[in-house]
């Protein structure tokens, strides 16, 4: 028993989490996309593209089908109470991924990096990605993020200083490299998108924490005023670049940015950026005393 559910109960609720994540965009994401839609001129390609995106979101939701066929890297963040066995949870998560793939909620999407062989059940070396954290609460919380390749590929990591961009080791330097990343990404990550930004750390932690920012709700407010200003600045300036939805041109290039810091060692100054596309698939489920709740 884990948080009051048995093995089958947990597997079942995880399949449901996958169904919800692949087919229903979170409310905060839909709200933002709709807001930005009103900023684009009616009749223009940018506006029609956002309309098609919204139509697609509705269709996927009502049919319980993938919003995007690239169901991405399947990443679970699992916070569990003391006493839960991680090895057992891991097996159940894998079972759920296999079952969800059979139901076409997930595309067979895992490839052997040397042989090119496709794993038809989505179980492979390092996949699904499962991060565990044991916490002091008495309930289990699972957040699932599906992130496709198009947006993952445009993410970037910079070291400061960057002489070519006149980017030094300060907040203005950070702003310059982040905006440079947006210019380089163009529409390739299926703009409009959201950035997760980590300032500092080493290369591995930088990317990990940047990605973790994508778990935040779009309407939360960063308690650190410097980071809050950075987040607002990045979105506002990115939307002046004219890239627009899909890179067709327009005012909506980003619809969010979330930043955090990690301390660093004196010799390194990394800025790590993870880009999430408009098909921002993130869902959370909690299990408390055997009761499953989906967000």
């Amino acid at each position, binding site marked *: 028993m884990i948080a009051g559910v048995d093995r089958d109960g947990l597997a079942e609720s995880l399949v449901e989490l996958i169904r919800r994540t692949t087919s229903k965009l979170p409310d905060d994401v839909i709200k933002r996309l709709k807001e930005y839609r009103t900023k684009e001129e009616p009749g223009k*390609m940018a506006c029609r*593209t956002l309309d*098609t*995106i919204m*139509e*697609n979101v509705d*269709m*996927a939701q009502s*049919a319980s*089908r*993938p*919003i*995007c*066929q*690239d*169901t991405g890297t399947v990443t679970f963040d699992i916070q569990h109470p003391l006493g839960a066995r991680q090895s057992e949870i891991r097996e159940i998560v894998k079972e759920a991924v296999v079952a969800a793939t059979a139901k*076409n909620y997930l*595309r*067979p*999407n895992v490839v052997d990096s040397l042989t*090119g062989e*496709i794993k*038809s059940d989505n179980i492979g070396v390092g996949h699904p990605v499962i991060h565990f954290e044991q916490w002091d609460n008495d309930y289990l919380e699972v957040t699932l993020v599906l992130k*496709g*390749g*198009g947006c993952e*590929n445009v993410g970037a990591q910079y070291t400061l200083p960057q002489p070519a*961009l*006149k980017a030094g080791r300060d907040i*203005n330097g950070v*702003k*310059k490299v982040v*905006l*440079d990343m947006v*210019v380089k990404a*163009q*529409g*390739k990550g*299926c703009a409009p998108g959201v950035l997760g930004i980590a300032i500092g750390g080493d290369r591995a932690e930088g990317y990990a924490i940047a990605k973790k920012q994508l778990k935040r709700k779009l309407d939360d407010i960063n308690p650190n005023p410097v980071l809050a200003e950075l987040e607002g600045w990045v979105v506002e*300036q990115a939307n*002046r*670049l*004219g*890239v*627009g939805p*899909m*890179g*067709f*041109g327009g005012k909506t290039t980003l619809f969010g940015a979330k930043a955090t810091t990690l301390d660093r060692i004196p010799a390194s100054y990394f800025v790590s950026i993870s880009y999430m*596309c*408009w*098909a921002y698939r993130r869902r959370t489920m909690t299990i408390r005393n055997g009761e499953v709740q989906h967000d």
Partner: protein
Amino acid sequence: MIKINTPVDEEKIRSLKVGDEVLISGSIVTARDRAHKYMVEERPDDIRGDLENSIIYHCGPVMKKHDDGTWEVVAAGPTTSIREEIYQADVMEEYKVRGVIGKGGMGPKTLAGLAKTGAVYLHAIGGASQVLARTVVSVPRVYKLEEFGVPESFWVFTVKDFPAVVTMDSHGGSLHDKILATAEEEFRSIVDSL
């Protein structure tokens, strides 16, 4: 909206310009990384009939097989095209392909290939897998399914009114180059003011 019916002739394709919005009907063929590598390295002949004067779709769909053996498209949006940059121009020329649907645009080699062969690059809306899957009326054939797997196979789709935008034409025009140039200029003015 301009209607394109496949098979489509070179003249019609050469009349298309960057920014034109099109609705494609007829037969199109999915092909992505393994399929492109295979076409260039092994020049298979069995797919020629399906590719000539037709359109390649950079797409790795989610498919469902029914009990009677027929296939249904569950999700089918475009995948990133630039990965095929090293192959695309050769593939278009070899197989007389008149168009490529994908996302993100392609590079100079493909742009030159479009002019040479008489073809266009058509940008579909990335991620719109349901809206685009809805345009597929049937799936008459698939090649290489066993070997390449579902996302990498050549799926022949019969589509009706598949929407796309011409972002690279056969006259050297590229919307992507234009948008990038504007963005770079704007970027410089923003960072200079910091």
